[in-house]
């Protein structure tokens, strides 16, 4: 059953086209992330689904009800779409429990069980009597999620809910919230500009730029098979190198040596390949390396603890490699190494 259907939706603010031809489908229980840089229209999309903005073209349906068409607009309070805004937006005059009970018709007393259940889901059991200003930022965000979940909405919208929090807090909160949402069976749409947030939380990711959806897929698909170099670069670090020569067996020659092409890559015309730094393998001169490995020189090392990003020069061309921190002696700038590329690479035709 398709729970959320967004078909050909378009919206303009004056001359600026904020949304163009947006198509997205979600099934009940799905967790989808809309990922894009700021100003790409993702928040506008969220507001159109919630009912705070009207659309110019297309159609949005929730369940089997069409909620908006151009000129037809179901008001936000009748859509049963719950939102978790960036700043939480808890009602400052109500206790935590009253905030959670806000969307439950008949007030908190009647729904005591559901309120406690939701607070427990987000890890705040027993804190119902507190006032919002007595909570930390992370706790406020948890309450906002509990408040959204309480009335069993068919769709929960998360609007960059972690961007105002400290990085250390974010990872833990992400896991807990994801857990709460899935164990409650909620259908969730997350809007974010943080690629690691989108890839780690969502079952499927829609990458958006300039008001258009560029690609929809699972996190792995998006990361490994980006439809174009822009998407490839946006979801992670990447080198985009021209193909120097096509070889047999779906192999090609590039500046960093011969690579494997992923199946389904275009066959004609000039091509570019996208290589992730973690695909680049490094061996010292005295260690084993495949015979077709290229010689390279270490230019600089950016050490991150659990891994390091190595900038290399290969025949005068820059290249990057990500290596896990291992007990062996770390690489130092100036060292001569041999490199090769592991695993298949996505290729793009440059004529388009």
């Amino acid at each position, binding site marked *: 059953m398709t729970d959320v259907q967004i078909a050909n939706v378009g919206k303009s603010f004056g001359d600026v086209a904020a949304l163009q031809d947006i198509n997205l489908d979600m099934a009940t229980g799905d967790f989808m992330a809309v990922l894009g840089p700021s100003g790409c229209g993702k928040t506008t999309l969220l507001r159109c689904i919630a009912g705070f903005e009207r659309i110019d073209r297309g159609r949005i349906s929730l369940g089997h009800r069409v909620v908006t068409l151009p000129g037809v607009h179901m008001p*936000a*309070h009748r859509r049963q779409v719950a939102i978790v805004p960036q700043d939480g937006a808890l009602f400052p005059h109500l206790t935590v429990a009253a905030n959670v009970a*806000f969307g439950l018709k008949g007030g908190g007393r009647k729904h005591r069980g559901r309120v406690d259940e939701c607070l427990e889901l987000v890890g705040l059991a027993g804190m119902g009597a507190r006032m919002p200003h007595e909570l930390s930022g992370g706790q406020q965000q948890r309450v*906002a999620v509990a408040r959204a979940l309480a*009335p069993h909405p068919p769709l929960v919208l998360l609007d960059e809910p972690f961007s105002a929090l400290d990085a250390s807090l974010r990872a833990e909160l992400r896991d807990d919230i994801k857990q709460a949402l899935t164990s409650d069976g909620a259908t969730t749409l997350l809007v974010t500009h943080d690629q690691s947030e989108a890839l780690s939380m969502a079952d499927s990711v829609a990458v958006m730029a300039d008001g258009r959806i560029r690609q929809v897929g699972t996190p792995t698909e998006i990361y490994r098979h980006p439809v174009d170099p822009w998407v490839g670069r946006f979801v992670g670090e990447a080198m985009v190198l021209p193909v120097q020569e096509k070889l047999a067996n779906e192999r090609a020659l590039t500046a960093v040596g011969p690579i494997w092409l992923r199946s389904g890559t275009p066959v004609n015309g000039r091509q570019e390949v996208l290589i992730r730094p973690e695909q680049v393998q490094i061996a010292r001169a005295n260690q084993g390396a495949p015979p077709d490995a290229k010689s390279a020189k270490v230019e600089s090392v950016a050490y991150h603890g659990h891994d390091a990003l190595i900038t290399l020069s290969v025949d005068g061309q820059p290249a990057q490699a990500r290596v896990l921190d291992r007990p062996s002696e770390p690489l130092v700038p100036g060292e001569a190494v041999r490199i090769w590329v592991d695993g298949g690479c996505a290729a793009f035709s440059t004529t388009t």
Partner: protein
Amino acid sequence: MATAVALIPLFYLLLRTGQAGLTAWWERIATARVAELATTSVLLALVVALACLAIGVGSAYLVTRTNVPGRRFFAVMMALPLAVPSYVAAFTWVSVADLWSDSARFEGFVAAAVVLTLYTYPYVYLPVAAALSGADRGQEEVARSLGYNAWGTLWRVTLPQVRPAIAGGGLLATLYVLADFGAVSILRVDTFTRAVFTAFSAGFDRIGALSLSTLLLLITLVILGAESWTRRRGARYVSSGARSASAPADLGWGRLAGLAAMSLVLLAALGVPALSMLRWVDEGVSQADSLADIAAAAGGSLAVSAAGTALTLALALPVGILVARYPGKLSRALEGAAYLAHSLPGIVVGLSLVFFGVTVALPLYQTTALLALAYATLFLPLAVAAVAGAAAQAPPSLDEVAQSLGYSRSAVFRKVTLPLTLPGIGAGAALVFLTCMKELPATLLLRPTGLDTLATELWQATGVQRYAEAAPLAFLLVILAALPTWLLARRSGISAGPKLAKQPTKIKVVETQ
């Protein structure tokens, strides 16, 4: 609409002047007498503004950035002279001076300058102290780390950072002095406001009063223009940096000098009224019929103030909500127009409404309704600021969340918007009410015949040197005016400085109050 109603007096004044013809107007004002008035008014405003800047900026720096002894105490106390209406202050100084000398009355330019400075400098002190305690101290620390000492940092970084507040406060003080009627008329300095009143009430020279009013209005507009210009230029200094408590500057022995200076200002500004009341209140209350008179005056004050508050808030609600919810050119223009009215001298507003009443709306003349309109014109900005501040307590994101949880617009208003904004609007209403209670010039001109208020009674009693009769009224007025001042000083958060710094700054906590 609401703003337009508030601006009726202004339009009317300009219309009348236009009708009479510009040349006629010019002939009336281009006289030696008017030049003299203008010189006195402008000079007084300048002298007082400069003195206010010195006291206001100095004490704001002392209480927010240095280790002056008792700075928490002074932070609140330095704002208190604002609670004394200028005519009450003038009355207390005159009545205290009278204790020492029977012949020479305390009056004239210097007397007026001293009194006005002592009770006007909080207009500089409050915004500057608020800006200083809210300013980004990171910038100061950067300056110190780049080799500037405390003094150099103050001049190169701190003061430029709060320059908009300083400029704004200074211009406010200037406007206040230009608009002041009570103090200058009690201290007998011939300024525009006093001349307008004399021309109107003693000479029945309506056209003369009108011409002078228009000139005063023009001067006010020029200063207002300068104010908004500095505010626009100052916009780039606004920083919302994290507040971090930094060690206050150590003044060494200088801190005792700072302590002495602030004590002296407070002693003069608060000690003199206290002395006057100690001397006269007892005698005033014990006079025959005095309590009945006071009760009658208080009743009159309550009646006209209640009417004024109701009208002002009715006009302020739409403007305030518009300003808070839809920040844009239109709402800024509306807000600007409301502030324009606030800077108008009360005597000008009163006079133009007298003309309006006599020529256009005769049934309204000498009714409470017309006086309420004058109050609305004068105090609309107070109410708009209160409503906008209250509306900001319920930001649109809360509305949207409530809607997404299934509440219709009217239910959202009832369950979210109203509970959050009501306290703020109530406080605004109280503020407007108390401000109406102490308004003098417009009340003098517009009150219904036979109606006395606390302010007019005090003014009349002082005029004929019946100090004992005036003292209880002055006492009541100071008590009434102290309430909003206390609120203002508390709201600006100056006294709470270091405590605020401990709150988490990363997440914006929406507070209930």
